[in-house]
Structure formats: C-alpha cells, structure tokens
C-alpha cells in the first residue's frame, strides 16, 4: 500500500489507471459470472468485493492522488464497484433460485409412507348411537332421563301395572338379587325410569331414557343378558296415540332417512293401553323386500322392520305415580338400541358389542 500522498506531485498510481480498474472490474465480473453456486459466490464476493479485493484496495489509493485527479479516479472506481455489486446481487438472486430449486428436488420424500404414528381411539357405538337417538328428542325439547341398573322391584314391575302375579312378568326373564326379601332386580327394561320421572316431576313430561337393561337370556348372535333400550315418555294434557305415531315417525325419519314410514300393530304391554308394536319400512329396500332381485337381507324380505313396543300410558301407571288420569294422558315407547344398531349398520353378531374387541368399536369413531 502506498502512503498518503500529501504533498502534491502528480504521482501515478498504477492501480487507479483506467485500464487497471477496467481489468479489475472485468476480472470481478468474470468471477461472478463463473460462480457455480452460493458457496462459490461467497468466495467470489470476498475476492472481488471484500476489504482486500483489488477494487477495495485501489479505492484506498485514491487518497494518494492529487486532489484534481481524485474525482476521476473515484468515479472510475465507484462505477466499477457499482457494476460489480450489481452483478453480484444479480448472480446471488439467480443462484438462490437455483439453490432452492435444487433443494426442493433433493428434499423430496416418499409421501406415501405411513403416517399412523398415534394410536386411534373410538367411543363404543352403543354410546354414540344412544346419544344420537336422544339428540333427536333433545332437538324436540325433550329431556334425557336416567336411572339405576339395580332397581326396586316395585319400580320395575308393580308401578308399571305388573303385580307379582302378572303373567307378563314371566315374559321378562328377570335377574333377581339376593336376599329374596331385598325386592331388588336388575332392571329388565328402561321403564322404571318412566316411573321415577313421573314420581319426581310434574307434567308436562317429555323424557327420553336410553340405558342398559338385563334379562336372563343366554348369549348368542342375537341375544345377550345385557343390552340397551331407549324409552320415551310423554305425559301432558290431551296426549293421544296420534301424537305417539307422529313422534315415532319423526324419530325413524331422523335416524333412517326421509320417507321412512311406520305402522302400528295391536300388542300387549301391562304399562300401556292401547298397546302397539311398531314396524318401520325397511330403509334398505324401502318396503319392496328385494334388493337387486335378491331378498333384502336387512328385513329378510319382509319390507318391514320391527322396532319395538309402544302405547298410551295405562292410567293405572299414572295413578301409581301420582298423576291424575282424568287430567293427563301420555304415551310411551321402548326400542332396543343394540337391535337398531345391528340392522342400521349391518352388525351380524350381538356378541361383538360386548366382547371389547377394539376392531368392533374403532370403525365407528367418535360419532355415529
């Protein structure tokens, strides 16, 4: 490096000569153009733009020039450095794009790899289906009522017009609890929840009661000692069988699709009079009994599916529960949730519902 050119003497500074500056500039531009990648360009930047690059060094020599020469030299160097910086920036941008493009190619993964890192859970379809059924009624303004599984015999039977010697008691094979004078049973139906509801609130009553029930049925593909029912009860002034029909029509359509109609057949239950069995049009074959020429498997070709029992609440039940039948009337119905789940979803074997094999619940997810 030359010392400060304090006293004037038109000294020639070689590096500031026009040809030299041009040469340095061209060398820098050539190096920039030749930079292969960002790494290389970084080196080029050091070599040609850095503090020790020829242009930077030459720039420092400007002071060595006589004042009248400095302007020219400064301009020359400035232009050259500007040119180089611009080229560098341009090259940088080009190489960055190239770099990213290359990276994107190199970083390619096999997106078809499995992604099941976390185990999947599920709710039991009986739980979610019970909720779904109850939701239909909640949407109509009903409340959801519940009761215990171990129930007083009086609530399970007597209050529902099934005295000790009622033949209908033998229709529901009951688990009795010890000792014999405990007068406790595992509830054979969700109907005691009706009685509990009527005994603890005033009409108008609109409740839906899904729940677990128990009967001494041996286990097979369609029977289980533990199963689930959903019971509905309405007690109000002026309630009729027509209201029962309207309500159940609405429920079947909400659960099985528009246009699914129902029909009543006379039946018998001690706690309702008149009593009916309710059938609904098969939601698969829509009543024709056939699917693609073959017998409909859901309704076995009958065109109808039996849903369960219903009727007008027997005034004797109202009386036992302290409701004046001269003022109020009601309707009630009870259906098997497991059975509905089975035909709605084509579940072939009821045992699957209770065995706890996770392969049963998992396809149903968290909602039905």
């Amino acid at each position, binding site marked *: 490096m030359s010392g400060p050119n304090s006293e004037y003497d038109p000294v020639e500074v070689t590096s500031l000569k026009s040809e030299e500056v041009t040469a340095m500039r061209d060398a820098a531009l050539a190096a920039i153009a030749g930079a292969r990648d960002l790494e290389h360009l970084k080196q080029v930047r050091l070599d040609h733009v850095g503090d020790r690059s020829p242009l930077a060094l030459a720039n420092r020599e400007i002071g060595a020039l006589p004042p009248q020469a400095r302007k020219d030299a400064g301009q020359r160097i400035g232009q050259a450095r500007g040119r180089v910086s611009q080229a560098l920036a341009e090259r940088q941008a080009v190489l960055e794009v190239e770099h990213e493009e290359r990276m994107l190619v190199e970083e390619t993964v096999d997106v078809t790899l499995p992604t099941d890192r976390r*185990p999947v859970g599920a709710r039991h379809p009986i739980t979610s289906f019970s909720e779904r059924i109850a939701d239909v009624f909640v949407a109509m303004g009903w409340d959801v009522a519940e009761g215990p599984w171990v129930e007083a015999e009086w*609530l399970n039977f007597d209050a529902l017009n099934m005295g000790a010697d009622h033949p209908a008691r033998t229709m529901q094979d009951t688990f009795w609890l010890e000792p014999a004078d*405990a007068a406790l049973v595992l509830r054979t139906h969700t109907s005691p929840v009706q009685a509990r509801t009527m005994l603890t609130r005033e009409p108008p009553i609109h409740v839906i009661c899904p729940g*677990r029930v128990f009967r001494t049925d041996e286990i097979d593909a369609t029977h289980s000692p533990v199963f689930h029912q959903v019971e509905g009860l309405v007690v109000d002034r002026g309630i009729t069988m027509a209201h029962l029909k*309207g309500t159940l029509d609405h429920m079947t359509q909400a659960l099985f699709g528009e246009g699914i109609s129902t029909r009543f057949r006379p039946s018998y239950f001690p706690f309702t009079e008149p009593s009916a069995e309710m059938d609904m049009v098969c939601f698969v074959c829509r009543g024709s009994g056939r699917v693609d020429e073959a017998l409909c498997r859901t309704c076995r070709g009958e065109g109808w599916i039996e849903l369960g029992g219903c009727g007008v609440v027997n*005034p004797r039940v109202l009386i036992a529960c302290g409701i004046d039948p001269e003022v109020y009337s009601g309707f009630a119905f009870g259906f098997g949730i497991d059975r509905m789940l089975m035909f709605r979803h084509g579940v072939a074997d009821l045992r699957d519902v209770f065995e706890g094999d996770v392969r049963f619940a998992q396809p149903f997810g968290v909602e039905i």
Partner: protein
Amino acid sequence: MKAPLSWIREHVDLPADVTLDALTWRLTMLGLKLEGVASPADDITGPLVLGRVLTREPEPQKNGKTISWCTVDVGEANGTGDPQGIVCGAHNFVEGDLVVVCLPGAVLPGGFAISARKTYGHVSAGMICSASELGLPDDAFGGADGIIVLPADAGAPGDDAFPVLGLGDAVIELEINPDRAYALSVRGIAREAALGFGAPYADPAARRVPAPNDAGHPVVVDDPAGCPVFVARTVTGFRADAPTPDWMARRLTQAGMRPISLGVDITNYVMLELGQPLHGYDRDKLTGAIRVRRATAGEQITTLDGQRRTLDVEDLLITDGSGPIGIAGTMGGETTELSGTTTNVVIESAHFDAVTVFRSGRRHKLPSEASKRFERGVDPELPQAAADRAVELMVELGGATDDAGVTVVGQAPQRRVVTIPADLPARISGLEIDAATVTAHLTAVGCDVTADGERLAVVAPSWRPDVTDPYDLVEEVVRVVGYDQVPSVLPTTPPGHGWTPVQRLRRRVGLTLAGAGWTETISYPFVGEDDWDRLGLPADDPRRTTLRMANPLNNEEPILTTTLLPGLLKALARNVGRANADVALFEHSLVCRPTGNERAPILGVETRPSAEEWATIEKAVPSQPMHLAVAVTGQRARAGWWGAGREGGWADAIGAVRDVARALGVEVEVRADAVAPWHPGRCAAVRIGERVIGHAGELHPSVCRAYGVPARTAVAEVDLDALLEQAQQVVPGPTFSSYPVAKEDVALVVDAAVPAAAVEAALREGAGELLESIRLFDVYTGPQVGEGRKSLAYALRFRAPDRTLTEAETAAAREAAVAVAAERTGAVQRA
C-alpha cells in the same frame, strides 16, 4: 297357538275370496300376530293318491336288505285302472292296507321328482310314501317306522290324498298376548276372523247343556275363590283303546300336540277348540267324592309326568278319598289318570283362579297347556259347554254312554260393567270416532253396550276377563277401527333443558379419551368371588361387599361388580389373544356398592307413594356410582419409519386420568399409594383435595398372570361421578402477557424418594407470581449425582403482565424458587 285353517273355517263363514295372506294380516291387525304359516302342500305337486296294496312280495337283496315288490290299486288315478307296480323298502304294511301313493310326475318336498324307474329288477312306477317324505312330522299317521298306513275307512283307492292327509290345509301360528287368552282356542281365533271380515260366526260353545242334578259324581269345593265353578260329567262304557280318529289326530298334531290316547286326545281337542282345559279321571280309580281344597303342609303328589312333588299350602288341589289327585289347572296325578283299561270316565271342566294356577305353575316349574290358559284367564261360563262337548265326543268316538248325572258346583262370576265416556276412544286415539261407532265396535267384539247420556255402560263378554278398565275398551274400539288409521301428529312440546351438565360432561370424557387413542368397551357387570382373589383384594376390601344375583346365568359369576377392572382386563386379554398386542381400552359404567342392608318395599299402586315411602325406596336401591377405568398394554406410540415406538405403562394410565381431569377442569393430585391390584411401587392415588377418587398405575405382576394379560399392563379406575361433581362448568377466559418471556433452567438433585410433584410444588411456590410455566424435562440418576439421588431438570418460564423482566428480576425469582425447593425437599442445585 297353532291351528289349521280348516278348523277355523268350520266356525266362521269367511268369504271365498279371503286369501290366507289377507286373513293372517287382518288377524295380526286385530292383535293376533302371525308367527308363521306351515302349509306342507306348497312343496308338493300331485298326483298323490290313496292306494290299496294288492300284493306284496318280499325280495331279499344281495346287500342284505329286503325290498317288497308290490302291486297297488290306485283306482283310475293312473289312467289305466290297472294295478301300479311299485318297489317299497318299508316293512310296516301288509296286503290290503290303505297307503299313500305318489305317481310318476309328482314332485315331493325338496324338488324330489318321482318317475317310473328301473330298480331291483323291476320298473317301479311311483312311490309309497312315508310321512317325512311328504314333509309331515315323522310320527304323523303312525308312520314313525315306515310308510303311512291309513285307517281302512279313510278313503278309496284313487282318491286324492291331499285332503285325507290334511295337506293343503295351512296351519297358522299366532302369537297370543297375555290379554287375549280367549284366542288360545279355535273358538277365539274364528271369532276374531269373523270380526275382521264381518263374516257369520258359529260359536262352538253355544250348545244346549243338560241341567245339573244330584246324580253326578259328587264334588265338594272347599275353596270357591280358587275354584268358582266345577263341572263333572260322567260317561260309562268308554272304549279307551279305540283309535283316535285320523282327523282328530291330525288336528292335534297340526296344533302342536301329540296324540296319546282317545280319552286324553278328546280332552285336548276340546281345549283347543273351546279354550277350556279339561281333565279326565278313571272313575273306577277315584275314591269317593272329588274335593277341591288347598294343600296341607308337606302333602305330596305324583303328577302325570312321573314327578313326585311336595305341595305348598297355597297349591289348590283336586283330591279324593285317597288324597291329592291333581294340582288344579296345572297337572293331574298319576293314580287316577285315564288308561287303556278305563271304561268309566269323570270329566272335570272347572274354572280356577288365575293367580292360584299361575303360582302353582311357577312353584312347581310346571308350564302346561292348561295352566297357560288358566293363568291368563279362561271364559268362566265355558265349563258346562266344554264338558258336554267332551261327553259328545266320547260317546261318538269311544262308544261311551252319557251318564245322566251332571254335577255343577258354583257359578260363573257376574260379568263386569265398565262405564266410559262415549268420546274416550276418540280422545285417547286421536281418531274421529263417534258414539255410534264406539257402540257398534264394542258390540262386534261381544260386549253389551247401554248408552246413558254421554256415557256408555259396557258389559264385557265372559271370554274377556282382561277387559276391566275404560282404556281396555278404547283398545278394543281402536283395533276394530284399525291401528293403521291412527293419524301422525307431532305433540306440542314446551322448551326443554337439553342434556344435563353431567350428561354433557360424560360425553366430553368419552371424546377426550377416544381422541387420545383409547377405545371404549362395554363389559358385562357380572363377576365371581374368584375375581377378587385374582385382583388380590384383601379380605376386608370394600370392593368385596357386593350384591349377588339369586339366579345368575353363570354360577361362577353371581356377583354384580364393584369395579370395572375385571371386565376390562378380560376384554384386554381377549384382544391380546386375538393378536392385537397394542391395546388401550376405557369403559365408563355403573358399579354397585351396596351396604348390605338393601331391602326395598313393595308399595301399593292405588295411589302415589308418600314421601316416606319414596324415601324407603330410594334408600333401598344401592349406591351405583359411575366409574371410569382404563387399561393399556403394548405400544402407546407406534414404531415406524420415523423411529422407535413407546411402550405404554403406568404413566399412560395416570396420564389418562389427568387428561380427563384437565378436560373437566378439575385439579387432581397424584400421590404414591400401594393398593391392590396395583404394583405397590407403581401405584398412584388420584385425589381431589383430600378425597381419593381412584387409583392408577401398573398392575401387580400376579394380577397380570391371573388375568392372562401381558406383564406391565397398566390400569386406572376412578369414581367418575366424583370427578364430574367438581367439573368446571364455566371456563374463565384466560388473560396473558405479550411481554417477552425469560427462560431459566434449573437442575436439582434430590433424594431418590422425593416425589417430583413435591419438588415442582416447591419451585412453583418459591418462584412466585412471575412464573408462567414449569416443566420437568429430564430425570437423571447415575454416578454423577450419587447413589440414592436423582437429578430433576426443570425449564422455568417467567413473564410479567406489565413489563419486560430484567435479568435481575428473573434471577431473583429463580433463586427464590430454588431456595424453597432446597428448604422443602433438600434439593441441591446441580453444578
């Protein structure tokens, strides 16, 4: 109840165009539900004719069998009138027998086509049929051991066999509900058919009966409440060994009863026809008068089924001088039963109290055709007609002589009058039904109706003891109008409250666990004493205080469970057994925690229970809290191309409970505990404040072995109700600072026995309000910290709500935290 159509049609003149389908549907819509139709002839296409065996040549065969080469007269049925040559393999017939011949061209059930074919060196032109080949019960027509051999007078060769065999006579089976006992008879079914089609009906019970006199077999009824009516008729000279005529045997078989002997068959036939159960006694075996009374303690009887039974003082008995000869309405005794040598018969046609018969039937586990009818309610005005019908058949078919003696004790109770407002059926059904229609329909079902202003006084017919209430009459009217006429109307519902908070929270618990990879199961709540041992519960564990079922399905599991773990572990083992190694299950269900003093009252039903009575019911029903349990084995995080998996264990079980608590907004505290069935060093008590609501951790190895689940299986069980009680109903909106965070890590060395929770609590307290969060990110044990010591590394984040913290502030908070930890837990900062 099964009945052949021909029998029903005998009593109702149905229009000719009423199809079987139309009839059964109408009956179903009247309340007699069709269960099934059996009509064997559907599978048979003729020609099927009667034939008389002319010749029968037995021909032994090389294979050891003997076949018979027969010629059979089939009249003109074969078109030629010549005898038909047929090879037959059966041996139960002789020349001259009347048999059933299937001629070439016929098709039998199963698509079995009959043609003339060469066999055993003959051309066999048809087949002599057995009952089973025609789709009839094996033992129909005495054909159990070969072909059907008909009575000689059953018809002539060449006659169509269909009517003779009852083929083509559909048998309909109806489900009869307990309120329609009258339909457990052809009389009742025919009546309903008549009602359904407005067809003329001939009541088979409408017969002139002889007046009672004193010349009959003496009968004393000590218990008129149990036996309001007892009719005894007598026949003499009855040929008990006379064959039951074919038509009767066929009808009994069609109705599902087995023909036994003429006397018994006649009583059964009359029961099927009229609905009145009868019993026949061999009069020569009776000792003196028949007496109807309750049993005395310890009295015994051998019933017709050969069982020696000890009687209960509530049992109503038919007795004679020798003692009990029958349980009223349930089953007769052995000593006086009709036999092949009986010539003098006493026919019992009585009305018994339904409850008495129901209880005897249940007590002695003796369901019978008779008790089925009595316990549901038989027409009390039937006994005389039924007895008379039996006498008629014994005279006609058994050559008996009707004895002049007619004993009638007691009389049918007065028919009941039920009064209803004429508009009640309309009000209850939602149908428009005027008073005239109500009257007409009630009259059609057999009621006597008298209008009294707006009200109708209705006398129900004698065969309808079930009709006691106004609503019973509503059902009668509506079923005649037709249930299919009821309109569909949605009721007006006042606004409801929707799901209760607890119900919504339970849904949240399920969603939380399912979202965290747990799968819900439903188990049976039945366990055995053995389960308590497998769980290793100590003798005084409260979970051993249980309710038992008196009649469990499985004697090994008579207990209602007090914990969800047995069911969950069995489900877990089942999954693992089915080659699913990674299983995480949860269940929320009720458990039963009795005190042992549960005694529920049987209250009256005439009025609402008083508050005290209701309280006794509520108190008697055992506590049934809802529990939540989880069980996990195998990997909780899967291995894969991303790296290793993570085995589930005690921390997952505790974590599940914490997840649920967090979802409910409940603060739970976890402390070390040691209770069964958990590993004593890996068991956590979960507490809300001071209350322990459950436990979680790894199972004791012996419990894993006992339930056949993999080692290190982890479980948790908590009282879900207790958690839900504390759930935060309204989450307060959070406030948080946007000033910079200051992060500080501290590593503390403590004694290995010091719980991490204690160290964290101390740090929290010491750090004060500036502490935003604290997280344990490493636990180290090893030579660097020394034997019996562990290092806990915490990441602390500090932030102030209103300013950027200075380094000095942060350092001071950190130092304060460490100081409290040192003081409380002996923690030393790791160098």
